[in-house]
């Protein structure tokens, strides 16, 4: 019997190849999209979970709430914070602080740059990372020890024996020999920690004058800190007591506002930090949970869409099998047997589609990974295996999609079917259900398309919007502050300025793209309330020209004006503001601020110029209020910037030659503005593209479904068209009748989809500080697209039906 059913199924599918292909293709594509998006979602939600005991490892987060500025979430905390916390709360079993460091490694023939992480000796007690060689418990106890990842060990010691070997590291201007004490496995991509090389965090390794600033004060935020807390509820208990901790511990000196208001600490378990970082200072690489949820929704909806499509085509096709059902019933088949037959057919088809979907996913993943910079991979079995998910989906979709047609087909009354020349289509109820399903399908597809349109518009906006600075022709040299250049910076900058093609070269105390929480309290006379805190930036000559910042009011700093120069020790120094700072200080407009006094740490300064706001960081971040001060002196921690015209490669080569002359062992590195922004924009871009992919596929499945429906419905209406034409209808009339029938659900779907998409996108755009405004076009273009797709889809069938000779059409039935 099953063999017999299989044969019938095979022949039916083979005979109605179009339906079979549409059915399987729709489901396969739906399943492939579902799998791909779910892999992405699982990739994002699985961050850090691989780390042993991840739930018991907590990072110390800090939310800074400076008055007048939006609160800022960061994982950068003071080096003193975690030791103080561990001393106060015995629940903390072990802790480690991490401090990023760029070191140079002297090899036999050259010096290479390497990112290293300085960590406390207890690092491995917190992070029980898989060790390939060496003993983790003692690996970091010697100040001259270094731990490498497998890849890095292979790079420096290609013979495979790294343990016990030595490396000469130059860090902070000091050269020392380090011994490799352990090799750890490379960290998988699902890791927030970016670790390649570990060296002990040692106060003595820093210049004496820097030690106190780095390790003893509460206003320098240069470490991240992790604690191991295994006791259930302990982390929550500590979090509840954090305010007391701040009152008890934090030294009030140097902090611009009442402490409790400014500093809010919290401990967060590792699995949560990937999502939490999206709202803060460390947004690059983090995932916005809303976007991930949206992707999951798209995945499920696409699968639902494919299932709806299947149901629709299957019920439509079922009528073609009405005669078969009637005969089987006449010959003694029970309704149950028929239901089982049709359900197993649906399951089999779904399984087939799942296999195709799986193959499609395998084919698509390399492309998607290359496109989005991800490392998604299908694993079939094991805890992360897709097979159970896939089988689950097959059962759910197979039963869901097969149940309705099975119930409809098996209900056909044999006597009625056999007596009639026409096949029943499930009756008026069946037609209604099919219309509802087509409507649902197009509504989902249109919501997707409208959302995708807004997302793409937002991406385009982010890529091309005026960021307030000239992004082309800008090079940023972050290593300008390295000790190798001590005493040579001014002359190097002059040499840069004299290089052909260079328009301006400058130095400032920080890179605008790295962000800063250096702040200054500023006040205006006669304004009560908390003094707003502004980001203070010390800038050198030509700063605004080099970054391409534009003037909104007043004038730029003048190197010849002593009142502008903070290094000249003249009272009544002049400062500049950005537009946000103007608003923060309560001036009605930039012009109104010019010439006005502002009190900075109690000293009176005068606003001489206002520049347009510039966005150097994530489009999600609010632009901070900035106060610029000019200094002709050596700027501490300076970052150089060069504005150039013409061939970037040529300029770069000329700058590099000058650099190598000044600092022969410090490799030259210059980043363009696009490289700096990439970290913020690439993930957005990737997720939007994934979403658009889902949306396109949803539309495609919708079109497939419509195509199948058109084939079915026009075939059933051929007789009606014949009668209408006999009565005088033209081919055009018939065409309008048929096409109109299919456009109705698309139009109805638009009416439902537009408000839904509008709401979703309003919520989504809210997360961006710099955002595109919603336009009617974002909604009408997808609708027009859907209408065009619908017309093109049904046109072929409609034309064939409309042009049929009436006599033939009537005879056909």
């Amino acid at each position, binding site marked *: *019997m099953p063999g*017999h059913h299989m*044969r*019938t199924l095979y*022949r*039916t599918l083979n*005979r109605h190849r179009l339906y079979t292909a549409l059915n399987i293709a729709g489901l396969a594509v739906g399943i492939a999209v579902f799998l791909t998006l779910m892999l992405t979602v699982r990739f994002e939600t699985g961050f850090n979970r691989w780390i042993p005991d991840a739930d018991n490892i907590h990072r110390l987060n800090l939310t800074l709430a400076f008055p007048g500025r939006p609160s800022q979430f960061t994982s950068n905390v003071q080096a003193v914070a975690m030791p103080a916390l561990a001393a106060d709360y015995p629940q903390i079993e072990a802790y480690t602080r991490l401090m990023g460091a760029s070191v140079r490694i002297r090899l036999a023939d050259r010096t290479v740059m390497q990112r290293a992480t300085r960590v406390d000796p207890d690092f491995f007690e917190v992070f029980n990372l898989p060790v390939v060689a060496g003993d983790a418990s003692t690996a970091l106890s010697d100040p001259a020890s270094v731990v490498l990842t497998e890849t890095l060990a292979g790079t420096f010691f290609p013979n495979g024996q790294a343990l016990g070997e030595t490396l000469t590291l130059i860090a902070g201007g000091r050269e020392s020999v380090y011994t490799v004490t352990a090799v750890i496995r490379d960290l998988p991509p699902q890791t927030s920690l970016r670790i390649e090389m570990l060296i002990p965090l040692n106060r003595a390794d820093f210049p004496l004058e820097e030690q106190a600033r780095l390790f003893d004060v509460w206003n320098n935020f240069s470490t991240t800190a992790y604690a191991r807390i295994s006791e259930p509820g302990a982390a929550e208990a500590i979090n509840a007591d954090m305010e007391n901790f701040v009152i008890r511990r934090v030294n009030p000196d140097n902090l611009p506002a009442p402490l409790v208001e400014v500093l809010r600490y919290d401990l967060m378990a590792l699995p949560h930090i990937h999502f939490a970082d999206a709202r803060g200072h460390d947004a690059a690489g983090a995932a916005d949970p809303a976007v991930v949820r949206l992707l999951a929704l798209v995945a499920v909806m696409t699968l639902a869409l494919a299932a709806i499509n299947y149901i629709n085509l299957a019920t439509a096709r079922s009528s073609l099998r009405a*005669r*078969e059902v*009637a*005969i*089987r*019933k*006449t*010959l*003694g*088949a*029970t*309704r*149950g*047997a028929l239901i089982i037959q049709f359900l197993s057919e649906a399951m089999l088809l779904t399984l087939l589609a799942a296999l195709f979907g799986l193959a499609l996913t395998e084919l698509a993943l390399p492309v998607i990974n290359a496109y989005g910079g991800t490392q998604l991979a299908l694993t079939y079995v094991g805890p992360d295996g897709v097979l159970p998910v896939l089988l689950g989906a097959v059962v759910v979709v197979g039963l869901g999609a097969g149940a309705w047609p099975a119930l409809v087909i098996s209900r056909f*009354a*044999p*006597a009625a079917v*056999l*007596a009639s020349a026409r096949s029943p289509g499930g009756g008026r109820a069946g037609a209604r259900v099919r219309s509802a399903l087509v409507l649902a399908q197009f509504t989902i597809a249109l919501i997707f398309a409208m959302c995708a349109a807004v997302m793409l518009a937002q991406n385009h906006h982010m890529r091309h919007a005026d960021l307030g600075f000239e992004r082309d022709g800008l090079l940023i040299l972050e290593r300008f502050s390295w000790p190798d250049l001590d005493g040579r910076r001014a002359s190097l900058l002059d040499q840069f300025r004299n290089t052909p093609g260079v328009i301006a070269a400058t130095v400032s105390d920080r890179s605008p793209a790295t962000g800063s929480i250096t702040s200054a309290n500023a006040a205006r006379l006669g304004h009560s309330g908390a003094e707003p805190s502004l980001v203070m930036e010390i800038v050198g000559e030509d700063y605004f020209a080099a970054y391409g910042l534009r003037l909104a009011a007043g004038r730029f700093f003048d190197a010849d004006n002593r009142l502008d120069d903070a290094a000249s020790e003249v009272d009544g120094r002049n400062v500049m503001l950005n537009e946000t700072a103007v608003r923060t200080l309560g001036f009605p407009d930039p012009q109104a601020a010019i010439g006005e006094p502002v009190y900075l740490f109690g000293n009176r300064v005068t606003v001489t110029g206002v520049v347009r706001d510039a966005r150097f960081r994530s489009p999600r971040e609010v632009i901070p209020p900035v106060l610029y001060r000019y200094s002709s002196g050596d700027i501490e921690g300076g970052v150089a910037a060069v504005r150039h015209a013409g061939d970037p490669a040529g300029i770069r080569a000329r700058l590099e030659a000058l650099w190598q002359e000044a600092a022969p062992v410090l490799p030259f590195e210059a980043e363009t503005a696009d490289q700096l922004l990439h970290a913020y924009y690439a993930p957005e871009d990737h997720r939007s593209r994934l979403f658009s992919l889902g949306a396109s596929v949803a539309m495609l499945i919708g079109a497939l479904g419509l195509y199948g429906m058109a084939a079915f419905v026009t075939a059933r209406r051929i007789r009606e068209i014949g009668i209408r034409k006999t009565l005088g209808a033209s081919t055009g009339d018939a065409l309008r009748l048929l096409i109109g029938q299919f456009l109705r659900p698309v139009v109805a779907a638009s009416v439902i989809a537009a408000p839904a998409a509008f709401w979703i996108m309003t919520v989504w755009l809210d997360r961006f500080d710099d955002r595109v405004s919603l336009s009617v076009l974002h909604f009408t273009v997808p609708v027009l697209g859907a209408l065009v797709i619908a017309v093109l889809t049904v046109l072929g069938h409609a034309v064939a039906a409309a042009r049929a000779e009436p006599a033939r059409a009537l005879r056909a039935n």
Partner: protein
Amino acid sequence: MIALSGIERLYRTEEVETAALGQIALEISQGEFVAVTGPSGCGKSTLLNVIGMIDRPTAGRYMFYDQDVCAASERTLAGLRARHLGFIFQTFNLIDELTITENVELGLVYRRTLSGTERRIRVAEAMDRVGIAHRARHFPHQLSGGQQQRAAIARAIVGHPELILADEPTGNLDSRNGSQVMDILQGLNAQGATLVMVTHSPAHADMAGRVVEMLDGRIVADVRRRA
């Protein structure tokens, strides 16, 4: 074997009620060959469908082998059809996707009592009997109307049913094919099968031992003749 009394079959739409059968009383004994005749729309096919248990009467009582069919569940009816009945239609009603062998085999599929070998033997016998064994591997659309009807007969008789119901079995055939089909049916009846046949053809009705004549959903004449 069959006892119908007070059988009615109404078709209702929202506005109209049509009586396809009214107060039918009919008894058919085992081995009879009954022809049902009458003008188009008089209820012949409806009566056959009711007898064949693929349509339920609106009122009345239908006893099949002393079993009340009207009250039986769908499942019971399906079982009765599979075990006792064979159907032959004017439009053959073969399944296009199946070969002739497979179509004939369908007459046994829902019986579930025979082994694969027994089924194959029975199918071969049935096809032999109606003379289409040489077309066994063909699909219905590759056969002439007469051949298709013979295949349909093979499917009806492959299960050795006690009752064969034929709804204008020669209606779509030319006279030569029509007489061939009638010869087969007569042969089946001669071997003991009960045969109820709806027909428009007086000549074919004459071959039956009993002619039931219908008009407007009622039996107006029930004539038994000597064979």
